[in-house]
């Protein structure tokens, strides 16, 4: 079978495709010569991408950014799938745990961007030169729709454990950790906070109350904002934005503490546009870039930049748990497999 298939493929590639190939190759060759174009994979919120690209391209007009955006899990899986034949030049704005995974797979290019010493040490990879640099922290939160909660007589939850109260049955949405970075940081934080066994027990109980697991990390909060579900487990930044749009939301920081992850940046090993990629990474750690990140994220890598973000819950920095990224990265695959086995039947199609 294998032999047969290979021989067919060989035959195909040699004869039938040759003609069409020439035509396509000719077309592509003509296209490649424009200004340098960097393919940048990202999980940053779509509405911010234009701003980021504009700021960068203003400074480096000869480099253009071509965004490929999806949820954290998807971008991670995509990068892993393309390991042999990487399509991305730079990853800008992906969970640090994911970048650690890529680093372990030997897929990141070590590079110390200009001015890296200015960043908070927490936000820089320990290796020298570092493989990744952080941008900001994104922090789990619970979006609570006051109007819908009142209609359903739902009390305000104050802790993660509260959410396992049967009164919330069918009223909670959360992201699927397989596709969503937010979902994963929730799961990994619960496993760290409650211990491995306690964590799964908590999730078993929570699962009983879950209305649906969503593909993206922002959707539970957007749905809570729109009242489709009263409670959405999401992240603080998304909640603040929806609240700013006028949604009757309360952003709750559960008392046990909240999981968080960094958005970070790295160069993909093997890129043919290394110079341009370095320029981009240089830009991503500048003070200016960090001011930009601060529009949505209360905690950023460049010390002293962060100003309070409107509608962000107070005390969020204190609520952030001591996150063991290395542990999360190393155990990511195992956690996700276990999660899928236990809960995937309630997952929204994706």
């Amino acid at each position, binding site marked *: 079978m294998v032999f047969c298939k290979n021989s067919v493929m060989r035959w195909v590639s040699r004869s039938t495709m040759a003609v069409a190939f020439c035509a396509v190759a000719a077309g592509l060759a003509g296209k490649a010569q424009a200004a340098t174009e960097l393919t940048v994979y990202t999980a940053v919120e779509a509405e911010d991408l234009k701003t980021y690209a504009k700021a960068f391209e203003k400074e480096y007009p000869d480099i253009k950014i071509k965004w490929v955006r999806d949820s954290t899990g998807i971008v991670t899986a995509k990068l892993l799938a393309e390991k042999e034949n990487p399509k991305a030049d730079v990853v800008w704005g992906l969970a640090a745990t994911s970048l650690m995974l890529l680093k372990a797979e030997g897929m990141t290019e070590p590079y110390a961007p200009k001015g890296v010493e200015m960043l908070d040490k927490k936000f820089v990879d320990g290796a020298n030169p570092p493989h990744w640099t952080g941008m900001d922290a994104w922090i789990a939160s619970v979006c609570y729709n006051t109007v819908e909660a009142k209609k359903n007589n739902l009390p305000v939850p104050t802790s993660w454990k509260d959410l396992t109260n049967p009164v919330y049955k069918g009223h909670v949405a959360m992201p699927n950790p397989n596709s969503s970075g937010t979902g994963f940081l929730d799961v990994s934080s619960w496993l760290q906070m409650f211990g491995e066994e306690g964590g799964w027990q908590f999730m078993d109980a929570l699962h009983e109350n879950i209305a649906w697991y969503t593909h993206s990390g*922002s959707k539970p909060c957007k749905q809570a904002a729109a009242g489709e579900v009263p409670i959405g487990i999401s992240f603080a930044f998304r909640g603040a934005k929806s609240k700013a749009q006028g949604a009757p939301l309360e952003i709750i920081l559960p008392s046990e503490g909240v999981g968080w992850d960094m958005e970070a940046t790295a160069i993909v090993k093997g890129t043919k546009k290394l110079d341009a990629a370095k320029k981009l990474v240089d830009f991503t750690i500048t003070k200016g870039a960090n001011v930009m990140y601060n529009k949505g994220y209360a905690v950023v890598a460049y010390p002293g930049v962060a100003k309070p973000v409107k509608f962000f819950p107070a005390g969020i920095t204190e609520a952030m748990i001591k996150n063991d990224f290395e542990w999360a990265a190393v155990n990511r695959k195992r956690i996700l497999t276990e999660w899928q086995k236990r809960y995937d039947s309630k997952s929204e199609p994706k």
Partner: protein
Amino acid sequence: MSGAATAAAAAPGARIKPRMGRDDWIMRGAMVAIGLFLVLGVLLPLYTMMSKSLEDSDGAFVGLANYVEYFSTPALFYSIYNSLWISVLSTVIVLVTAFIYGYALTRTCMPFKGFFRMVTLVPLLTPSLLGGISLVYWFGNQGVAKELLLGESIYGPIGIVIGSSYWVFPHALMIVITALAVTDARLYEAAEALRASKVRTFFTVTLPGAKYGLISAAFVIFTLVFTDFGVPKVIGGSYNMLATDIYKQVIGQQNFQMGAVVSVVLLIPAVLAFAVDRLVQRKQVALLSARAVPLVPTPEPVRDWSMFAFCSVVAAIIICMLGMAQYAALVTFWPYNLELSLNNYNFDVMDGGGWEAYFNSIRMSLYTAAAGTLIIFFGAYLMEKGRGFQGGRTAFHMAAIVPLAVPGMVLGLSYIFFFNSPHNPLNGIYGTMLILVLVTVVHFYTVSHLTAVTALKQMDAEFESVSASLKAPFYRTFLRVTVPVCMPAILDISMYLFLNAMTTVSAVVFLYSSDTTLASVAVLNMDDAGDIAPAAAMAMMIAYTCAGARLLHALLTRGLARTTQAWRRR
């Protein structure tokens, strides 16, 4: 000439090997080229996909291990049951509704028939996702008519069945109308003369006469629902179906092997339904060949007005689905700020590619309509009007029929396997507009091909012989006679391709890149990110564009009919 003379000088009775003229070379060459296009566009990708389902993630052959894993994972194989159940239920609902509706349109004197016919075209102008989105606003937790569900959730089987029924309805109705339109009035006169009751006539004349049409419609509905991905994706909640499983495996988990396995599982019933339908249709052709006297319905107030009531309800549902999508798109912040605004049209700050996606879609659809019409019509012409080369022509026809049996999801996934392989010299087209056009042309090849063949068959079979005797090269006759005469069919084909390219999600969802985002996929992605109102807004943009295109098509067709009426009159 000398060669031919030598051959003929051999013993009489020796086989004559017809010498190919320049036209024959060009025509056969072109047909082989289009045939290869089909081989590259359908057969090789499908083959690659099937072989992937027998491999592990590193490409090693593992036999049926993936299938074993599939059938030992309840969450996965339950989807087969779900898909079958939803499809059968939708088929029953749609078939009954379409039959009554079609009956009202063809066999009664119900008023406003033109309006009722037009309304049913609406779902054809929208991606299947739109129905799902509308349902969220009607029956979701914040839906305006949520109470009608008596506490049941719209997210799940109920939503999938309603949403699916909405978008497959026109497809079924068209077949039913065709089946009901061809009847013989003499049968009804005979029944009346024999004093058969209305009911008895219905069951002994009407139903049997439309039998094959109904069977065909049933298979079409079943296949469309079974393989559709848009509706269950939006409104399915946690109810898994096969088409969404493929998506989940491939996009959600990048588990391509399992995606391939689910694809094969999805492909089998689709192919079966397709094969049965082709057999049934062959029978129907035999039935139609009889000369019939057309039936002219006579007024019958009770029947006509009850049909009017029924059709009004169906039409109202269709209009409500569309209207709600438009309303939701204009509401600033559902349900808390019902002020109308255009905020949701600010696609550039959403997932999915923004306005660029919309314009990409228009570009892609235009390319598809142009390239597809050219390739498909020319291919059908070569197949239908070529001289000799019978084997090649039969093979070509078979290849042109295959795409109809292949669900879009399966085709799209096959393209990933085939074109994204670094060993494929064509992998340069992966991630470009070209692959989107290619997959869309291939996905909608068969219906266009059959339309072209029908039009070509209606032309005098001897045009080619005459022009050969007049020493005119075939392409001259093709351009000066065939194309002008078949222009209405050519316009129909390009319209069909354009509409489908605008609204399709399933085949392209695996193949778009950040440069080539599409409006229909943007609807999906915005919905995925929770931006349902903008998703509705984009879906409505697609609907308006398609409606505009249809209008243009109607004007062109009418203009063409006027300018060519001197010679088209028969």
